[in-house]
Protein backbone atom coordinates (compact mmCIF):
# COMPACT_ATOMS: atom_id res chain seq x y z
CA UNK A 1 0.00 0.00 0.00
CA UNK A 2 1.50 3.30 -1.05
CA UNK A 3 0.70 6.53 0.65
CA UNK A 4 1.69 10.08 -0.26
CA UNK A 5 1.92 12.62 2.54
CA UNK A 6 1.69 16.24 1.37
CA UNK A 7 2.68 18.39 4.34
CA UNK A 8 4.99 21.38 4.50
CA UNK A 9 5.87 21.04 8.18
CA UNK A 10 8.78 18.61 7.86
CA UNK A 11 8.61 17.29 11.44
CA UNK A 12 4.94 16.48 11.16
CA UNK A 13 5.40 14.81 7.78
CA UNK A 14 8.17 12.71 9.29
CA UNK A 15 6.01 11.69 12.26
CA UNK A 16 3.20 10.63 9.98
CA UNK A 17 5.44 8.60 7.69
CA UNK A 18 7.23 6.94 10.63
CA UNK A 19 3.95 5.99 12.23
CA UNK A 20 2.33 4.70 9.05
CA UNK A 21 5.49 2.83 7.98
CA UNK A 22 5.33 0.88 11.24
CA UNK A 23 1.86 -0.18 10.15
CA UNK A 24 3.28 -1.56 6.94
CA UNK A 25 2.52 1.27 4.53
CA UNK A 26 5.03 2.58 2.02
CA UNK A 27 5.12 6.33 2.49
CA UNK A 28 6.42 9.17 0.42
CA UNK A 29 6.57 12.79 1.39
CA UNK A 30 6.03 15.96 -0.62
CA UNK A 31 6.84 19.17 1.21
CA UNK A 32 5.71 21.58 -1.47
CA UNK A 33 2.88 21.93 -3.90
CA UNK A 34 5.12 21.32 -6.91
CA UNK A 35 6.68 18.19 -5.43
CA UNK A 36 3.23 16.84 -4.78
CA UNK A 37 2.06 17.78 -8.25
CA UNK A 38 5.02 15.95 -9.77
CA UNK A 39 4.62 12.84 -7.65
CA UNK A 40 0.94 12.36 -8.31
CA UNK A 41 1.48 12.61 -12.04
CA UNK A 42 4.31 10.07 -11.96
CA UNK A 43 3.18 7.46 -9.43
CA UNK A 44 0.06 5.71 -8.27
CA UNK A 45 -0.93 5.94 -4.62
CA UNK A 46 -3.59 4.10 -2.68
CA UNK A 47 -4.08 7.03 -0.38
CA UNK A 48 -2.99 10.65 -0.27
CA UNK A 49 -2.87 12.74 2.88
CA UNK A 50 -3.02 16.42 1.95
CA UNK A 51 -2.42 19.54 4.00
CA UNK A 52 -4.47 22.44 2.62
CA UNK A 53 -2.07 25.28 3.36
CA UNK A 54 1.16 24.87 1.44
CA UNK A 55 3.78 27.55 0.95
CA UNK A 56 3.50 27.54 -2.83
CA UNK A 57 -0.07 26.48 -3.44
CA UNK A 58 -3.39 25.28 -2.21
CA UNK A 59 -4.09 21.68 -1.26
CA UNK A 60 -7.49 21.88 -2.93
CA UNK A 61 -5.77 22.14 -6.32
CA UNK A 62 -3.82 18.95 -5.68
CA UNK A 63 -7.06 17.15 -4.85
CA UNK A 64 -8.68 18.43 -8.05
CA UNK A 65 -5.74 17.17 -10.12
CA UNK A 66 -5.76 13.83 -8.31
CA UNK A 67 -9.45 13.36 -8.99
CA UNK A 68 -8.78 13.90 -12.68
CA UNK A 69 -5.81 11.54 -13.14
CA UNK A 70 -6.31 8.91 -10.45
CA UNK A 71 -9.86 8.78 -9.22
CA UNK A 72 -9.31 5.57 -7.23
CA UNK A 73 -6.90 7.21 -4.79
CA UNK A 74 -8.32 7.83 -1.36
CA UNK A 75 -7.87 11.37 -0.09
CA UNK A 76 -7.66 12.56 3.50
CA UNK A 77 -7.32 16.28 4.21
CA UNK A 78 -5.35 17.36 7.27
CA UNK A 79 -5.75 21.04 7.97
CA UNK A 80 -5.55 23.59 10.73
CA UNK A 81 -8.58 25.30 9.24
CA UNK A 82 -11.60 24.04 11.05
CA UNK A 83 -14.35 26.07 9.41
CA UNK A 84 -17.40 24.29 8.12
CA UNK A 85 -16.94 25.88 4.69
CA UNK A 86 -13.51 24.31 4.28
CA UNK A 87 -14.79 20.91 5.37
CA UNK A 88 -17.72 21.08 2.97
CA UNK A 89 -15.55 22.28 0.13
CA UNK A 90 -13.10 19.46 0.78
CA UNK A 91 -15.82 16.83 0.59
CA UNK A 92 -17.41 18.52 -2.41
CA UNK A 93 -14.32 18.30 -4.59
CA UNK A 94 -13.91 14.64 -3.76
CA UNK A 95 -11.86 14.11 -0.63
CA UNK A 96 -12.93 11.21 1.58
CA UNK A 97 -12.13 12.58 5.01
CA UNK A 98 -11.20 15.79 6.78
CA UNK A 99 -9.10 15.96 9.94
CA UNK A 100 -8.38 19.09 11.90
CA UNK A 101 -4.91 19.68 13.31
CA UNK A 102 -3.83 18.70 15.85
CA UNK A 103 -4.96 15.13 15.34
CA UNK A 104 -3.93 11.79 16.79
CA UNK A 105 -1.67 9.68 14.61
CA UNK A 106 -3.60 6.64 15.77
CA UNK A 107 -6.80 8.24 14.52
CA UNK A 108 -5.20 9.08 11.18
CA UNK A 109 -3.96 5.51 10.94
CA UNK A 110 -7.42 4.12 11.65
CA UNK A 111 -8.97 6.37 9.04
CA UNK A 112 -6.38 5.53 6.39
CA UNK A 113 -6.99 1.82 6.95
CA UNK A 114 -10.73 2.19 6.89
CA UNK A 115 -10.52 4.25 3.71
CA UNK A 116 -8.29 1.71 1.96
CA UNK A 117 -10.61 -1.09 3.07
CA UNK A 118 -13.63 0.72 1.66
CA UNK A 119 -11.80 1.50 -1.58
CA UNK A 120 -10.46 -2.01 -2.15
CA UNK A 121 -13.24 -4.21 -0.95
CA UNK A 122 -16.22 -1.89 -0.97
CA UNK A 123 -16.51 -2.63 2.73
CA UNK A 124 -17.47 -6.23 1.99
CA UNK A 125 -14.78 -7.93 3.94
CA UNK A 126 -13.90 -9.34 7.27
CA UNK A 127 -11.29 -8.01 9.58
CA UNK A 128 -9.49 -10.80 11.33
CA UNK A 129 -6.86 -10.76 14.04
CA UNK A 130 -5.92 -13.77 16.14
CA UNK A 131 -9.23 -15.26 17.25
CA UNK A 132 -11.26 -12.10 16.65
CA UNK A 133 -13.23 -11.72 13.42
CA UNK A 134 -15.30 -8.70 12.56
CA UNK A 135 -17.80 -8.79 9.74
CA UNK A 136 -17.80 -5.15 8.72
CA UNK A 137 -20.96 -4.83 6.62
CA UNK A 138 -23.08 -6.61 9.23
CA UNK A 139 -21.21 -5.01 12.13
CA UNK A 140 -20.92 -8.45 13.77
CA UNK A 141 -18.09 -9.61 16.00
CA UNK A 142 -17.01 -13.21 16.44
CA UNK A 143 -14.60 -14.43 19.10
CA UNK A 144 -13.38 -17.93 18.27
CA UNK A 145 -16.30 -18.01 15.81
CA UNK A 146 -18.84 -17.35 18.54
CA UNK A 147 -20.85 -14.24 17.97
CA UNK A 148 -20.53 -11.59 20.65
CA UNK A 149 -22.97 -8.76 21.07
CA UNK A 150 -21.20 -5.47 21.54
CA UNK A 151 -22.74 -2.06 22.11
CA UNK A 152 -22.15 0.50 19.38
CA UNK A 153 -19.36 2.18 21.31
CA UNK A 154 -17.71 -1.13 22.18
CA UNK A 155 -17.78 -2.08 18.52
CA UNK A 156 -16.21 1.25 17.53
CA UNK A 157 -13.62 0.79 20.25
CA UNK A 158 -12.74 -2.72 19.06
CA UNK A 159 -12.34 -1.52 15.46
CA UNK A 160 -10.12 1.31 16.65
CA UNK A 161 -7.95 -1.20 18.50
CA UNK A 162 -7.86 -3.58 15.53
CA UNK A 163 -6.65 -0.71 13.33
CA UNK A 164 -3.92 0.06 15.84
CA UNK A 165 -2.56 -3.29 16.89
CA UNK A 166 0.51 -3.14 19.11
CA UNK A 167 0.25 0.61 19.36
CA UNK A 168 0.05 2.55 22.60
CA UNK A 169 -3.17 4.58 22.41
CA UNK A 170 -3.78 7.52 24.69
CA UNK A 171 -7.03 7.69 26.64
CA UNK A 172 -7.69 11.05 25.00
CA UNK A 173 -7.38 9.69 21.50
CA UNK A 174 -9.81 6.89 22.35
CA UNK A 175 -12.29 9.34 23.92
CA UNK A 176 -12.08 11.59 20.88
CA UNK A 177 -12.51 8.67 18.53
CA UNK A 178 -15.67 7.58 20.33
CA UNK A 179 -17.32 10.90 21.11
CA UNK A 180 -15.71 13.46 18.87
CA UNK A 181 -14.18 16.77 19.66
CA UNK A 182 -16.71 18.44 21.88
CA UNK A 183 -16.69 15.87 24.65
CA UNK A 184 -13.83 17.39 26.56
CA UNK A 185 -14.72 16.70 30.15
CA UNK A 186 -12.88 14.49 32.54
CA UNK A 187 -15.91 12.22 32.53
CA UNK A 188 -15.11 10.96 29.06
CA UNK A 189 -11.91 9.38 30.36
CA UNK A 190 -13.93 7.52 32.99
CA UNK A 191 -16.26 6.39 30.25
CA UNK A 192 -13.33 5.11 28.21
CA UNK A 193 -12.32 3.09 31.22
CA UNK A 194 -15.74 1.53 31.67
CA UNK A 195 -16.11 0.70 27.97
CA UNK A 196 -12.68 -0.91 27.97
CA UNK A 197 -13.64 -2.92 31.00
CA UNK A 198 -16.79 -4.18 29.29
CA UNK A 199 -15.04 -4.97 26.03
CA UNK A 200 -12.32 -6.86 27.84
CA UNK A 201 -14.91 -8.83 29.80
CA UNK A 202 -16.88 -9.74 26.68
CA UNK A 203 -13.81 -10.96 24.82
CA UNK A 204 -12.58 -13.02 27.72
CA UNK A 205 -16.06 -14.45 28.37
CA UNK A 206 -16.15 -15.93 24.89
CA UNK A 207 -12.82 -17.59 25.45
CA UNK A 208 -10.57 -14.95 23.91
CA UNK A 209 -7.40 -13.82 25.58
CA UNK A 210 -7.05 -10.48 27.39
CA UNK A 211 -5.60 -8.46 24.55
CA UNK A 212 -6.06 -5.05 26.14
CA UNK A 213 -3.00 -4.01 28.03
CA UNK A 214 -3.07 -0.93 30.27
CA UNK A 215 -0.15 1.44 30.10
CA UNK A 216 0.23 3.35 33.29
CA UNK A 217 -0.59 7.05 32.96
CA UNK A 218 -0.99 6.90 29.21
CA UNK A 219 -3.66 4.58 27.96
CA UNK A 220 -4.03 1.17 26.42
CA UNK A 221 -2.45 -1.13 23.93
CA UNK A 222 -4.13 -3.93 22.00
CA UNK A 223 -1.60 -6.68 21.72
CA UNK A 224 -1.14 -10.41 21.89
CA UNK A 225 -0.28 -11.26 25.48
Amino acid sequence: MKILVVEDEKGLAESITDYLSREGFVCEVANTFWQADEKISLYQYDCTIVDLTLPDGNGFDIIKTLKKIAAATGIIIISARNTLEDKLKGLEIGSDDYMTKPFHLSELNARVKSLIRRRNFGGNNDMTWKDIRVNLPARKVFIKDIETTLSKKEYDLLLYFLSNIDVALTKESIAEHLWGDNMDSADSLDMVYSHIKNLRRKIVEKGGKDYIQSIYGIGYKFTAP
Partner: protein
Amino acid sequence: MKLLEKASRIYLIASLLIYVAVGIAFYWIINFMIYDEVESRLMVEKQDFETYVRANDTWSNNSYFVENKIEVVPVFGKFDNKVAFTDTLISNRYDETADPFRQLTFYTLIGGSPYRVAIRKSMIESYKLIEAISVAMIAFLGLLLVSTFLFHRVLSGKLWKPFYDSLARIKDFDWTKNKPLETVRSEITEFNELGDVMEKMASKMQHDYRSLREFTENASHEIQTPLALINARVEQFIQSKDLGENHTYWIEEIYHAARRMSRLNQGLLLLAKIENQQFTEQEELDLSELALNKLKDFEDILQHKDIRVSLQSAGSFRKVMSPALAEILLTNLINNAIRHNYTGGELRLESGVDYLQVSNTGNPLKSEPERLFERFKKESAGAESLGLGLAIVKQICDNCELRISYRYEEPVHSIRIML
Protein backbone atom coordinates in the same frame (compact mmCIF):
# COMPACT_ATOMS: atom_id res chain seq x y z
CA MET B 1 -38.99 63.17 8.81
CA LYS B 2 -37.70 62.83 5.29
CA LEU B 3 -35.55 65.53 3.79
CA LEU B 4 -37.97 66.28 0.93
CA GLU B 5 -40.96 66.44 3.22
CA LYS B 6 -39.12 68.68 5.64
CA ALA B 7 -37.97 71.01 2.85
CA SER B 8 -41.44 71.27 1.30
CA ARG B 9 -42.99 71.88 4.68
CA ILE B 10 -40.58 74.73 5.47
CA TYR B 11 -41.06 76.11 1.96
CA LEU B 12 -44.84 75.92 2.28
CA ILE B 13 -44.94 77.68 5.65
CA ALA B 14 -42.48 80.39 4.62
CA SER B 15 -44.20 81.18 1.33
CA LEU B 16 -47.61 81.13 2.98
CA LEU B 17 -46.42 83.73 5.52
CA ILE B 18 -44.87 85.88 2.79
CA TYR B 19 -47.94 85.65 0.56
CA VAL B 20 -50.28 86.56 3.41
CA ALA B 21 -48.07 89.55 4.29
CA VAL B 22 -47.94 90.64 0.65
CA GLY B 23 -51.71 90.21 0.36
CA ILE B 24 -52.39 92.28 3.44
CA ALA B 25 -49.98 95.00 2.33
CA PHE B 26 -51.48 95.09 -1.14
CA TYR B 27 -55.01 95.29 0.22
CA TRP B 28 -53.97 98.06 2.56
CA ILE B 29 -52.34 100.06 -0.24
CA ILE B 30 -55.37 99.79 -2.53
CA ASN B 31 -57.64 100.71 0.31
CA PHE B 32 -55.48 103.71 1.09
CA MET B 33 -55.42 104.87 -2.52
CA ILE B 34 -59.17 104.60 -2.91
CA TYR B 35 -59.84 106.49 0.30
CA ASP B 36 -57.29 109.08 -0.73
CA GLU B 37 -59.06 109.51 -4.04
CA VAL B 38 -62.55 109.75 -2.48
CA GLU B 39 -61.36 112.14 0.16
CA SER B 40 -59.66 114.47 -2.26
CA ARG B 41 -62.87 114.56 -4.30
CA LEU B 42 -64.82 115.38 -1.16
CA MET B 43 -62.38 118.19 -0.42
CA VAL B 44 -62.92 119.60 -3.90
CA GLU B 45 -66.68 119.49 -3.33
CA LYS B 46 -66.25 121.21 -0.02
CA GLN B 47 -64.45 123.99 -1.82
CA ASP B 48 -67.22 124.19 -4.42
CA PHE B 49 -69.81 124.27 -1.64
CA GLU B 50 -68.02 127.05 0.22
CA THR B 51 -67.57 129.08 -2.97
CA TYR B 52 -71.26 128.68 -3.69
CA VAL B 53 -72.31 129.67 -0.18
CA ARG B 54 -69.94 132.63 -0.16
CA ALA B 55 -71.44 133.88 -3.45
CA ASN B 56 -75.12 133.28 -2.65
CA ASP B 57 -75.09 133.25 1.14
CA THR B 58 -77.82 130.62 1.05
CA TRP B 59 -78.26 126.81 0.40
CA SER B 60 -81.26 125.01 -0.80
CA ASN B 61 -81.20 121.42 0.30
CA ASN B 62 -82.79 120.01 -2.75
CA SER B 63 -80.48 117.44 -4.00
CA TYR B 64 -82.33 114.31 -4.75
CA PHE B 65 -79.71 111.75 -5.69
CA VAL B 66 -77.79 109.68 -3.30
CA GLU B 67 -74.52 110.65 -4.88
CA ASN B 68 -73.14 114.06 -4.00
CA LYS B 69 -75.64 114.19 -1.22
CA ILE B 70 -75.08 117.22 0.88
CA GLU B 71 -76.70 117.51 4.24
CA VAL B 72 -76.85 120.91 5.92
CA VAL B 73 -77.99 121.01 9.51
CA PRO B 74 -78.18 124.14 11.64
CA VAL B 75 -76.19 123.98 14.82
CA PHE B 76 -77.20 125.52 18.14
CA GLY B 77 -74.98 126.16 21.02
CA LYS B 78 -71.32 125.39 21.11
CA PHE B 79 -69.59 123.37 18.47
CA ASP B 80 -66.12 122.24 17.78
CA ASN B 81 -65.09 123.73 14.47
CA LYS B 82 -63.39 120.70 12.99
CA VAL B 83 -63.09 119.04 9.62
CA ALA B 84 -63.46 115.27 9.86
CA PHE B 85 -63.81 112.21 7.59
CA THR B 86 -65.97 109.37 8.82
CA ASP B 87 -67.32 106.08 7.45
CA THR B 88 -71.07 105.80 7.67
CA LEU B 89 -73.93 103.65 6.51
CA ILE B 90 -76.95 105.25 4.87
CA SER B 91 -80.03 103.22 4.25
CA ASN B 92 -80.93 102.86 0.65
CA ARG B 93 -84.31 104.31 0.10
CA TYR B 94 -85.42 101.51 -2.26
CA ASP B 95 -84.45 98.22 -0.81
CA GLU B 96 -83.72 99.15 2.79
CA THR B 97 -80.15 98.00 2.69
CA ALA B 98 -77.44 100.03 4.27
CA ASP B 99 -74.88 101.35 1.80
CA PRO B 100 -71.41 102.48 2.86
CA PHE B 101 -70.54 106.17 2.44
CA ARG B 102 -67.51 108.32 3.13
CA GLN B 103 -68.58 111.48 4.81
CA LEU B 104 -66.82 114.85 5.20
CA THR B 105 -68.16 116.88 8.07
CA PHE B 106 -67.36 120.54 8.57
CA TYR B 107 -68.95 123.70 9.96
CA THR B 108 -69.68 126.86 8.12
CA LEU B 109 -71.72 130.06 8.42
CA ILE B 110 -74.67 130.47 6.09
CA GLY B 111 -76.54 133.75 6.39
CA GLY B 112 -74.71 134.41 9.63
CA SER B 113 -75.82 131.30 11.47
CA PRO B 114 -73.65 128.20 11.94
CA TYR B 115 -74.41 124.99 10.08
CA ARG B 116 -72.92 121.59 10.14
CA VAL B 117 -72.37 120.40 6.60
CA ALA B 118 -71.89 116.72 5.71
CA ILE B 119 -70.89 115.87 2.18
CA ARG B 120 -71.11 112.16 1.35
CA LYS B 121 -69.85 109.95 -1.35
CA SER B 122 -70.97 106.38 -1.90
CA MET B 123 -68.28 103.76 -1.49
CA ILE B 124 -70.22 100.95 -3.17
CA GLU B 125 -68.21 101.13 -6.35
CA SER B 126 -64.91 101.42 -4.53
CA TYR B 127 -65.72 98.48 -2.28
CA LYS B 128 -66.60 96.43 -5.28
CA LEU B 129 -63.28 97.35 -6.83
CA ILE B 130 -61.40 96.37 -3.70
CA GLU B 131 -63.29 93.11 -3.53
CA ALA B 132 -62.55 92.29 -7.16
CA ILE B 133 -58.88 93.12 -6.79
CA SER B 134 -58.61 91.12 -3.56
CA VAL B 135 -60.29 88.05 -5.01
CA ALA B 136 -58.11 88.20 -8.08
CA MET B 137 -55.03 88.65 -5.94
CA ILE B 138 -55.88 85.77 -3.63
CA ALA B 139 -56.54 83.58 -6.60
CA PHE B 140 -53.27 84.48 -8.29
CA LEU B 141 -51.19 84.19 -5.14
CA GLY B 142 -52.81 80.87 -4.31
CA LEU B 143 -52.13 79.57 -7.78
CA LEU B 144 -48.56 80.79 -7.56
CA LEU B 145 -48.13 79.11 -4.18
CA VAL B 146 -49.46 75.77 -5.35
CA SER B 147 -47.55 75.78 -8.61
CA THR B 148 -44.22 76.77 -7.10
CA PHE B 149 -44.79 74.23 -4.33
CA LEU B 150 -45.39 71.47 -6.84
CA PHE B 151 -42.48 72.59 -8.95
CA HIS B 152 -40.24 72.62 -5.93
CA ARG B 153 -41.31 69.12 -4.99
CA VAL B 154 -40.73 67.67 -8.39
CA LEU B 155 -37.43 69.47 -8.78
CA SER B 156 -36.06 68.39 -5.39
CA GLY B 157 -37.23 64.86 -6.02
CA LYS B 158 -35.28 64.86 -9.28
CA LEU B 159 -32.23 66.55 -7.78
CA TRP B 160 -32.03 64.23 -4.79
CA LYS B 161 -32.76 61.05 -6.71
CA PRO B 162 -29.09 60.05 -7.16
CA PHE B 163 -28.62 60.61 -3.45
CA TYR B 164 -31.48 58.30 -2.53
CA ASP B 165 -30.37 55.69 -5.05
CA SER B 166 -26.87 55.74 -3.57
CA LEU B 167 -28.31 55.55 -0.08
CA ALA B 168 -30.27 52.43 -1.02
CA ARG B 169 -27.08 50.84 -2.38
CA ILE B 170 -25.13 51.74 0.75
CA LYS B 171 -27.87 50.14 2.85
CA ASP B 172 -27.60 46.96 0.79
CA PHE B 173 -23.82 46.94 1.01
CA ASP B 174 -22.35 43.92 2.80
CA TRP B 175 -18.69 44.20 3.74
CA THR B 176 -18.37 40.48 4.28
CA LYS B 177 -18.96 39.92 0.56
CA ASN B 178 -16.49 40.65 -2.18
CA LYS B 179 -18.79 42.86 -4.25
CA PRO B 180 -17.59 46.49 -4.18
CA LEU B 181 -19.93 49.36 -3.37
CA GLU B 182 -21.00 51.38 -6.44
CA THR B 183 -22.78 54.65 -5.80
CA VAL B 184 -24.86 56.45 -8.44
CA ARG B 185 -23.05 59.07 -10.53
CA SER B 186 -24.88 62.35 -11.27
CA GLU B 187 -24.23 65.90 -12.49
CA ILE B 188 -24.03 67.18 -8.95
CA THR B 189 -20.46 67.45 -7.71
CA GLU B 190 -21.31 67.11 -4.01
CA PHE B 191 -23.13 63.84 -4.56
CA ASN B 192 -20.26 62.50 -6.62
CA GLU B 193 -17.82 63.51 -3.90
CA LEU B 194 -19.98 61.82 -1.28
CA GLY B 195 -20.10 58.73 -3.48
CA ASP B 196 -16.33 58.71 -3.87
CA VAL B 197 -15.82 58.97 -0.13
CA MET B 198 -18.35 56.22 0.58
CA GLU B 199 -16.80 53.92 -2.01
CA LYS B 200 -13.37 54.49 -0.56
CA MET B 201 -14.61 53.76 2.96
CA ALA B 202 -16.46 50.66 1.81
CA SER B 203 -13.46 49.19 0.05
CA LYS B 204 -11.32 49.93 3.11
CA MET B 205 -13.87 48.14 5.28
CA GLN B 206 -13.87 45.11 2.99
CA HIS B 207 -10.13 45.09 2.93
CA ASP B 208 -9.85 45.31 6.73
CA TYR B 209 -12.45 42.63 7.18
CA ARG B 210 -10.60 40.34 4.80
CA SER B 211 -7.24 40.88 6.43
CA LEU B 212 -8.72 40.32 9.89
CA ARG B 213 -10.27 37.12 8.68
CA GLU B 214 -7.06 36.01 7.06
CA PHE B 215 -5.19 36.85 10.22
CA THR B 216 -7.42 34.71 12.41
CA GLU B 217 -7.13 31.85 9.97
CA ASN B 218 -3.38 32.19 9.68
CA ALA B 219 -2.97 32.52 13.43
CA SER B 220 -4.96 29.34 13.83
CA HIS B 221 -2.81 27.56 11.30
CA GLU B 222 0.47 28.82 12.65
CA ILE B 223 -0.35 27.77 16.21
CA GLN B 224 -2.09 24.48 15.43
CA THR B 225 0.74 23.15 13.27
CA PRO B 226 3.45 23.13 15.97
CA LEU B 227 0.85 21.75 18.38
CA ALA B 228 0.12 18.97 15.91
CA LEU B 229 3.83 18.29 15.80
CA ILE B 230 4.08 18.06 19.61
CA ASN B 231 1.11 15.71 19.67
CA ALA B 232 2.53 13.51 16.95
CA ARG B 233 5.96 13.34 18.56
CA VAL B 234 4.43 12.43 21.92
CA GLU B 235 2.41 9.68 20.29
CA GLN B 236 5.55 8.32 18.68
CA PHE B 237 7.45 8.59 21.92
CA ILE B 238 4.98 6.57 23.95
CA GLN B 239 5.44 3.66 21.57
CA SER B 240 8.89 2.97 23.00
CA LYS B 241 8.94 -0.05 25.23
CA ASP B 242 11.30 1.09 27.94
CA LEU B 243 9.52 4.05 29.50
CA GLY B 244 9.95 4.61 33.21
CA GLU B 245 7.13 5.77 35.44
CA ASN B 246 8.65 9.24 35.58
CA HIS B 247 8.82 9.44 31.83
CA THR B 248 5.21 8.54 31.32
CA TYR B 249 4.19 11.14 33.88
CA TRP B 250 6.15 13.89 32.14
CA ILE B 251 4.92 12.86 28.77
CA GLU B 252 1.36 12.83 29.96
CA GLU B 253 1.85 16.38 31.27
CA ILE B 254 3.31 17.58 27.98
CA TYR B 255 0.52 15.91 26.05
CA HIS B 256 -2.17 17.43 28.26
CA ALA B 257 -0.67 20.89 28.10
CA ALA B 258 -0.43 20.75 24.32
CA ARG B 259 -4.03 19.60 23.98
CA ARG B 260 -5.24 22.28 26.38
CA MET B 261 -3.38 24.92 24.46
CA SER B 262 -4.84 23.73 21.23
CA ARG B 263 -8.38 23.86 22.61
CA LEU B 264 -7.74 27.26 24.16
CA ASN B 265 -6.47 28.55 20.84
CA GLN B 266 -9.50 27.19 19.06
CA GLY B 267 -11.83 28.72 21.65
CA LEU B 268 -10.24 32.14 21.42
CA LEU B 269 -10.24 32.05 17.64
CA LEU B 270 -13.87 31.09 17.68
CA LEU B 271 -14.64 34.07 19.92
CA ALA B 272 -12.72 36.36 17.58
CA LYS B 273 -14.56 34.98 14.58
CA ILE B 274 -17.94 35.51 16.22
CA GLU B 275 -16.92 39.03 17.19
CA ASN B 276 -15.85 39.75 13.62
CA GLN B 277 -19.16 38.37 12.37
CA GLN B 278 -17.55 35.78 10.18
CA PHE B 279 -20.54 33.48 10.46
CA THR B 280 -22.69 35.13 7.85
CA GLU B 281 -24.87 32.25 6.72
CA GLN B 282 -28.42 32.67 7.99
CA GLU B 283 -31.17 30.10 8.21
CA GLU B 284 -34.37 29.74 10.14
CA LEU B 285 -33.74 27.09 12.75
CA ASP B 286 -35.85 25.30 15.30
CA LEU B 287 -33.55 25.59 18.31
CA SER B 288 -35.74 23.36 20.48
CA GLU B 289 -35.47 20.51 18.03
CA LEU B 290 -31.74 21.07 17.54
CA ALA B 291 -31.21 20.98 21.30
CA LEU B 292 -33.14 17.73 21.49
CA ASN B 293 -30.94 16.19 18.79
CA LYS B 294 -27.83 17.48 20.51
CA LEU B 295 -28.89 15.77 23.73
CA LYS B 296 -28.74 12.46 21.87
CA ASP B 297 -25.04 13.04 21.18
CA PHE B 298 -24.52 13.24 24.91
CA GLU B 299 -26.48 10.06 25.68
CA ASP B 300 -23.42 8.12 26.79
CA ILE B 301 -22.18 10.65 29.25
CA LEU B 302 -25.68 11.28 30.59
CA GLN B 303 -25.98 7.58 31.22
CA HIS B 304 -22.51 7.43 32.69
CA LYS B 305 -23.18 10.24 35.16
CA ASP B 306 -26.66 8.85 35.79
CA ILE B 307 -28.29 12.17 34.94
CA ARG B 308 -32.04 12.16 34.45
CA VAL B 309 -33.22 14.21 31.49
CA SER B 310 -36.62 15.84 31.49
CA LEU B 311 -38.13 17.74 28.62
CA GLN B 312 -40.83 20.32 28.67
CA SER B 313 -42.03 22.02 25.54
CA ALA B 314 -44.57 24.80 25.17
CA GLY B 315 -43.79 25.39 21.52
CA SER B 316 -40.68 25.45 19.41
CA PHE B 317 -38.20 28.30 19.65
CA ARG B 318 -37.51 29.48 16.10
CA LYS B 319 -34.71 31.85 15.24
CA VAL B 320 -32.94 32.97 12.10
CA MET B 321 -29.23 32.53 12.72
CA SER B 322 -26.09 30.81 11.51
CA PRO B 323 -26.45 27.00 11.78
CA ALA B 324 -22.80 26.67 12.80
CA LEU B 325 -23.30 29.15 15.66
CA ALA B 326 -26.54 27.48 16.76
CA GLU B 327 -24.72 24.18 16.95
CA ILE B 328 -21.88 25.65 19.03
CA LEU B 329 -24.34 27.48 21.27
CA LEU B 330 -26.36 24.37 22.11
CA THR B 331 -23.33 22.11 22.48
CA ASN B 332 -21.77 24.51 24.95
CA LEU B 333 -25.00 24.96 26.92
CA ILE B 334 -25.57 21.22 27.27
CA ASN B 335 -21.90 20.51 27.92
CA ASN B 336 -21.99 23.10 30.68
CA ALA B 337 -25.12 21.60 32.20
CA ILE B 338 -23.50 18.17 32.24
CA ARG B 339 -20.07 19.22 33.47
CA HIS B 340 -21.38 21.12 36.47
CA ASN B 341 -23.95 18.48 37.29
CA TYR B 342 -23.37 15.83 39.91
CA THR B 343 -23.80 12.10 39.55
CA GLY B 344 -27.48 11.22 39.85
CA GLY B 345 -28.52 14.79 39.08
CA GLU B 346 -31.04 16.19 36.69
CA LEU B 347 -30.96 18.07 33.40
CA ARG B 348 -34.07 19.85 32.21
CA LEU B 349 -34.65 21.24 28.76
CA GLU B 350 -37.56 23.66 28.51
CA SER B 351 -38.66 25.51 25.45
CA GLY B 352 -41.34 27.94 24.38
CA VAL B 353 -42.04 30.09 21.36
CA ASP B 354 -39.62 32.74 22.52
CA TYR B 355 -37.20 31.00 24.86
CA LEU B 356 -35.07 27.96 25.49
CA GLN B 357 -33.89 27.01 28.93
CA VAL B 358 -31.33 24.49 30.06
CA SER B 359 -31.36 23.72 33.77
CA ASN B 360 -29.15 21.45 35.77
CA THR B 361 -28.69 20.45 39.36
CA GLY B 362 -25.36 21.49 40.77
CA ASN B 363 -23.47 22.96 43.67
CA PRO B 364 -24.05 26.65 44.40
CA LEU B 365 -21.84 29.16 42.59
CA LYS B 366 -18.78 30.30 44.46
CA SER B 367 -18.46 33.56 42.54
CA GLU B 368 -20.90 36.32 41.56
CA PRO B 369 -23.39 35.21 38.94
CA GLU B 370 -22.74 38.36 36.86
CA ARG B 371 -19.23 37.17 36.16
CA LEU B 372 -20.39 33.76 35.03
CA PHE B 373 -20.24 34.70 31.34
CA GLU B 374 -16.78 36.24 31.50
CA ARG B 375 -13.82 34.67 29.78
CA PHE B 376 -11.61 32.37 31.81
CA LYS B 377 -14.12 32.41 34.63
CA LYS B 378 -13.90 28.96 36.08
CA GLU B 379 -16.04 27.52 38.82
CA SER B 380 -13.94 24.52 39.53
CA ALA B 381 -10.21 24.43 39.40
CA GLY B 382 -10.56 21.35 37.22
CA ALA B 383 -7.90 21.43 34.56
CA GLU B 384 -10.29 20.09 31.96
CA SER B 385 -12.43 23.20 31.93
CA LEU B 386 -11.15 26.08 29.85
CA GLY B 387 -13.53 28.71 31.16
CA LEU B 388 -14.55 29.72 27.64
CA GLY B 389 -17.76 27.75 27.15
CA LEU B 390 -20.21 30.27 28.60
CA ALA B 391 -18.21 33.22 27.24
CA ILE B 392 -18.74 31.75 23.79
CA VAL B 393 -22.44 31.23 24.54
CA LYS B 394 -22.73 34.87 25.60
CA GLN B 395 -20.86 36.11 22.55
CA ILE B 396 -23.12 34.15 20.22
CA CYS B 397 -26.22 35.51 21.98
CA ASP B 398 -24.94 39.08 21.70
CA ASN B 399 -24.26 38.53 18.05
CA CYS B 400 -27.61 36.99 17.22
CA GLU B 401 -29.61 39.48 19.26
CA LEU B 402 -30.63 36.95 21.85
CA ARG B 403 -30.90 37.75 25.53
CA ILE B 404 -29.41 35.42 28.08
CA SER B 405 -30.10 35.13 31.77
CA TYR B 406 -28.93 32.99 34.64
CA ARG B 407 -30.95 31.96 37.70
CA TYR B 408 -30.24 29.78 40.66
CA GLU B 409 -32.92 28.14 42.77
CA GLU B 410 -31.25 25.64 44.97
CA PRO B 411 -30.06 23.24 43.69
CA VAL B 412 -31.00 24.09 40.10
CA HIS B 413 -28.99 26.38 37.85
CA SER B 414 -30.90 27.65 34.83
CA ILE B 415 -29.62 29.41 31.77
CA ARG B 416 -32.30 30.83 29.55
CA ILE B 417 -31.94 32.33 26.10
CA MET B 418 -34.74 34.52 24.84
CA LEU B 419 -35.64 36.72 21.93
